């Protein structure tokens, strides 16, 4: 029997996160290239959508189930997955680089006596070895890295790998009940933040910087974000000034993001900010200073007064969206 590669799926409140499909797709592609057998593993209580996974190239799905697993428990999930992984002699695990994945993956690595490479933006097989590409210095540089351990754990950055659809296969879901899970550390509740969307997960981000002149003017950013279905982001300057909460900060010491569209308003483009958003697929800059560094990474720019431009842009987007 061939060795196994496991796609570690992530569920929240019983629904699979989008990154799970990317994880499944990456694992099934690597399985073909490395001649491994692929399985998907999910830890949870009731989990929907598991049948969808077969569309991404994985037929066999293992559901490690316990009523205590509806919420994340780092100790419980680590134990359940590492035990299963040892049982089937898995040699490679692919995990999404989310808050949960970044907590879980290194713990699994220790239990499996393996190394762990996080936040991969490319995984390539060269002479039978997996070579990972990942950003360092918040994206100011990239490294190619490989693991020397027998078992290998990789986390993949969400939104970067394409979830490729395969021919419809039939899913074979196997439920394994986990008795007396390790609950030394567990999530007891979740406090949802006020913002509608999180910058780490959004496909479009509208960010404001010091050029907004004050926190009261961020309604312009929020209106544009609403019209686009986008998340609101912020530069470090405005977060440090207390205009916006830290969770919206984009850049080094904030979040590194790769949305399809990033709209920077009144952001000059300090090197720390550029590092965190320059891998966005398309960048729009609106800034009155035509020499601002943000224009060097922007695809499209308007070098003018954002207080005049933003309301018109929001109206225009609303028109085409209605």
């Amino acid at each position: 029997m061939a060795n196994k590669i496991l796609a570690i799926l992530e569920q929240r409140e019983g629904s699979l996160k989008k990154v799970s499909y990317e994880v499944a797709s990456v694992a099934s592609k690597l399985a073909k290239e490395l001649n491994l057998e692929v399985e998907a593993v999910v830890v949870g209580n009731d989990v929907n959508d598991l049948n969808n996974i077969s569309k991404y190239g994985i037929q066999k799905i293992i559901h490690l189930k316990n009523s205590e697993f509806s919420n994340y428990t780092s100790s419980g999930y680590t134990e359940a997955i590492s035990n299963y992984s040892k049982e089937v002699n898995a040699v490679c695990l692919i995990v999404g680089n989310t808050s949960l994945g970044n907590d879980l993956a290194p713990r699994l690595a220790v239990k499996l006596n393996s190394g762990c490479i996080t936040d991969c933006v490319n995984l390539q097989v060269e002479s039978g070895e997996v070579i990972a590409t990942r950003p360092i210095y918040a994206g100011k540089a990239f490294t190619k890295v490989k693991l020397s351990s027998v078992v290998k754990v990789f986390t993949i950055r969400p939104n970067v790998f394409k979830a490729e659809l395969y021919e419809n296969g039939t899913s074979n879901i196997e439920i394994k009940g986990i008795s007396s899970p390790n609950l030394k550390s567990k999530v007891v509740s979740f406090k949802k933040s006020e913002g509608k969307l999180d910058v780490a997960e959004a496909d479009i981000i509208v960010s404001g910087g010091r050029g907004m002149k004050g926190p009261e003017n961020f309604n312009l950013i929020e209106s544009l974000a609403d019209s686009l279905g986008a998340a609101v982001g912020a530069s470090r300057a405005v977060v440090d000034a207390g205009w916006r909460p830290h969770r919206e900060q984009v850049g080094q010491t904030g979040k590194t993001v790769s949305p399809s569209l990033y709209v920077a308003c009144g952001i000059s483009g300090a090197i720390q900010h550029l590092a965190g958003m320059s891998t966005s697929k398309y960048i729009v800059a609106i800034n009155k200073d035509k020499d601002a560094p943000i224009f060097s990474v922007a695809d499209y720019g308007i070098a003018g007064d954002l207080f005049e431009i933003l309301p018109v842009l929001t109206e225009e987007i609303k028109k085409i969206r209605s």
Partner: protein
Amino acid sequence: MKIAVCVSHVPDTATRIKIGADRKTIDPTGVTYIINPYDEFAVEEALKTKEKIGGDSIVYAISVGGDTNKESIRKALAMGVDEGILLKDDSIRDSFGIAHALADEIKSLGCEIAFFGKQSVDFDNSITGQVTAELLGYNCVPVVVDFKLEGSKITAEREIEGGREVVETELPAIITTQKGLNEPRYASLKGIMASKKKTIAEKAAAQSPNHSEIIDMNLPTSKQPGRILGTDSSAVAELVKLLREEAKVI
């Protein structure tokens, strides 16, 4: 209680990265090194924890690396940390190599709690705290923005996508700190003077093989500068058209 805070020594975030001739390290010429920004939140939380518990609590700042790491240890001492320890190793270690050395020291000191920055802003692996905790068999809550310790019970809020998770666990534990947890104190002049007099203990870092190997390092391909479409709202129509028809993102 014995409290550890683990600090790393990293290039200032304003650094423009240049790749070294070996293509496996960065060129250190002209680079200013600072204490990892997230570690300042860890130092602050360690000090607050000591102040809260009182008694004969002691805070150790531990760093793995070469002699220059003493600058960041000294910064922690200036903020109020009691003792500094350098686990000396001039070779390059990955997160696992660093975690092994830290785990070994935390264990031999008998620290029941250790604070780490949630990531070092050089390699951004964001795993050293979790790995150290697993090696020690400690509980661990990463990316913490709110921390409470009552007796041996920990209630911590950690930042995740779209909100905060409230996590309950117990000592012994490792907490990794996120911006927003606290406001790191400034080192007072007195603190800076006192830190200069303190000796930083030097020990050989516990041996541990790396699990990963850097093959290459490169800079991102620089983008073609884009188009400036205009200087006022008359450019909006064209912008929207381009986003729809050329970029196809809206």
